[in-house]
């Protein structure tokens, strides 16, 4: 069975961009339009990788991360945000709580999404020539 990825982002264009970028990789791509929907999906399915938007209406990325980590401490979660101090400040709360996460810069292009996903999920041979991480 192929690996499964969940993309949690309130912007449809972003969800579609991830889905289109990864459609030929063999991974199963699932999406959620809110933190609440993402938490629900994670509670009923074991994903191999989660891309999570930081800024969302309702439950934001940090709270979504907090809720997911209550039940799943292992799945790699990449928080998707601009590399700007005002956004990254919010992540310090998550750090203080020792919540495990990584950061993915927003915006990101289709080729970069594919390369990073393969690297993260261990498809090293296919992605090893890429160096723009």
């Amino acid at each position: 069975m192929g690996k499964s990825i969940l993309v949690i982002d309130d912007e449809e264009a972003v969800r579609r961009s991830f889905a289109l970028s990864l459609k030929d990789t063999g991974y199963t791509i699932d999406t959620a339009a809110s933190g609440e929907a993402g938490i629900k999906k994670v509670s009923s399915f074991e994903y191999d990788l989660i891309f999570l938007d930081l800024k969302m209406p309702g439950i934001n990325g940090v709270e979504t991360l907090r809720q997911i980590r209550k039940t799943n401490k292992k799945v790699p979660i990449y928080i998707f945000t601009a590399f700007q101090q005002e956004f990254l400040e919010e992540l310090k709360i998550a750090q203080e709580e020792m919540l495990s996460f990584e950061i993915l810069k927003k915006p990101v292009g289709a080729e970069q999404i594919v390369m990073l996903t393969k690297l993260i999920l261990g498809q090293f041979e296919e992605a090893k020539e890429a160096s723009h991480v």
Partner: protein
Amino acid sequence: MTTYELKLYVAGRTPKSVGIVEDIIRFLEVAADGNYDLKVVDVTENPQLAEKDGILATPVLEKVSPESAKIIVSDLSDRERFLSTFRQKAQQKEDNYG
């Protein structure tokens, strides 16, 4: 003797990022025979530097010199993969200039 100049970009000071730093130091002590200069950049503290250096995700190890290369190191459990990348880049350099 070659001195490796490296930057490691991490997301905060979490147990995971501390573990990655420790793993990389252990690795460099052997692979670079202790000849390295490693700077750790916390992207949440210094996003401007990460932006300037073209970093797209964490954790990434950038070999500044000899021969610039970036290696994503999110899965150090696959240690052989990481070692292979590091050595391959070093070998490429030797092939090119040696």
